[in-house]
């Protein structure tokens, strides 16, 4: 029995014209395919690398390892207040410019200029070269062209985005489409109390997005996280979303849940009863004007049972906006066809009291318990789909975003391959 209305076509999948046939996971088990994804997707789309709060003042910087795009970038706030990104490479002989102890580990800090560990070349916060050791030994006279290699970088809603394609002509805001524009006005900037989690996961990056882009699994995989009676009820209902939206390469699912306070206090665990918090966050929404009138992308069906919206911004950034007034981000950074680094960051309004702080702690700890359950199925899935003993998998209508994600990734590869064919090959005249 349907609890929530579907589009008139009868299903979300048909409404968005995504095809209803079984799918393959060949795109998640092939090293060759992953190499195509690196070229077609990770070197050519806007990637979210953080928040402006991570670089609040001039000279604040962090590095980001973008293995899938084949580079490392430095993100820094300049003396003029602008946030910029550079390839993390010294122009002299290619040493990685900013790193500590381990060249492959990310770092952050504050500086007035970047100094290469190798020969002491220095660059200012805007990337211009400011010092060359034994300059008189060189044959160069115009050092202005030897600044750091820039990376396109934009800030939108306080999120920092980079694009490794120097020929890109689409702004980040434009790329993020109507779903993105419909988030303008959400008080992200007031949610500065941050928890960050990181995991190395033994699966293709898309499989973890798949896991978080459907809640069909929730009443089963997470059954024992609810009280026994509540859990039986939930698995009996199954899962239906309030709404799915698809906007170009991006998508979202709007979900019910997290009644706060619950109808019956015995529906929730003892720790939740005392703290008045749980997976959906502290029951009491913070008193913020920005949470009174939510922007149009949030709770698109305007349902009173709304609990959380999960946005998938292609390729690898998810944003979860929770009804009780906080948000969560997921990043999936591929490191090979069957491994990736997962990052989950929770953002709350800074607590005023220890009780508020404890409520947020419960939400953060609960997030980790769930994510360990989710992450844990991925390696099991990856190892078996790689056997190719079964190659077709039926997806249901509540898995519509998975269909869309994989189709989008394939479409980027098809476009890329076409563009490579269309590029005229330069033939030099025989000498």
């Amino acid at each position, binding site marked *: 029995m349907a609890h929530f209305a579907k589009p008139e076509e009868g299903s979300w999948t048909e409404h968005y014209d995504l095809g209803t046939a079984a799918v393959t996971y060949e795109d998640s088990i092939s090293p060759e395919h992953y190499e195509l994804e690196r070229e077609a997707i990770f070197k050519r789309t806007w990637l979210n690398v953080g928040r402006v709060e991570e670089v609040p003042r001039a000279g604040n910087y962090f590095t980001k390892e973008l293995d899938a795009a084949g580079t490392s970038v430095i993100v820094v706030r300049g003396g003029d207040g602008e946030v910029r990104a550079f390839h993390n490479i010294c122009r002299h002989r290619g040493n990685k410019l900013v790193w500590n102890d381990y060249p492959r580990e990310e770092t952050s800090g504050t500086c007035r200029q970047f100094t290469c560990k190798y020969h002491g070349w220095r660059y200012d916060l805007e990337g211009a070269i400011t010092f060359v050791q034994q300059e008189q030994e060189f044959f160069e006279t115009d050092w202005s062209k030897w600044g750091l290699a820039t990376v396109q970088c934009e800030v939108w809603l306080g999120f920092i985005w980079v694009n490794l394609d120097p020929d890109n002509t689409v702004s980040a805001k434009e790329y993020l489409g109507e779903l993105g524009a419909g988030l303008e006005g959400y008080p992200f900037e007031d949610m500065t109390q941050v928890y960050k989690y990181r*995991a190395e996961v033994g699966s293709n990056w898309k499989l973890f997005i798949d896991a978080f882009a459907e809640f069909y699994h929730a009443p089963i995989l997470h059954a024992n996280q609810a009280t026994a009676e509540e859990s039986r009820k939930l698995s009996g209902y199954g899962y239906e979303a309030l709404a799915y939206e698809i906007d170009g390469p991006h998508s979202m699912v709007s979900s019910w849940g997290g009644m706060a306070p619950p109808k019956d206090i015995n529906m929730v665990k003892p720790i939740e009863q005392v703290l008045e918090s749980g997976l959906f966050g502290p029951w009491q929404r913070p008193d913020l004007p920005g949470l009174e009138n939510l922007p149009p992308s949030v709770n698109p069906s305007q349902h009173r049972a709304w609990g959380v919206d999960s946005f998938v911004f292609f390729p690898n950034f998810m944003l979860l906006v929770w009804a009780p007034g906080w948000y969560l981000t997921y990043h999936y950074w591929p490191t090979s066809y069957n491994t990736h680094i997962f990052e989950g960051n929770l953002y709350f309004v800074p607590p005023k009291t220890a009780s508020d*702080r404890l409520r947020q702690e419960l939400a953060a700890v609960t997030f980790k318990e769930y994510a360990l359950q989710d992450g844990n199925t991925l390696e099991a899935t990856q190892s078996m789909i790689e056997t190719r003993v079964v190659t077709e998998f039926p997806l249901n209508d509540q898995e519509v975003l998975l269909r869309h994600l994989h189709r989008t990734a394939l479409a980027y590869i098809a476009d890329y391959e076409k563009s490579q064919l269309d590029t005229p090959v330069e033939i030099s005249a025989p000498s």
Partner: protein
Amino acid sequence: MSTILPAEFADLEPFAERWSLRTEAERYAERLSSPMNDLQAFYDAAYPRLAAAMAYLDAFDLSSLPPEATRLLWLCYSLVNVSFPIEVWHQPRVPDSGAASMDNVLAPSV
């Protein structure tokens, strides 16, 4: 035995050395390395005192908690962590999580 918690919470003092831990990594590691009996004993002692601890701590400015109050708060964080083995999993580790791990790499300073 030296006391490290506020006097009002002397009953939790036997658990303080072990569970008043500053970081999530320490709390999670202690949980994973503890037998269920120990987790149960801590939970049984601390859970009934959680509401009182919240009321006690809320009398202070969160940004300038006295050291013994900070340690009580850390103990409460451990209770939150340990509530999962006790209330949900019936074992210290998330079931089927095998070698999977997830590290807390940034947390609020208090």
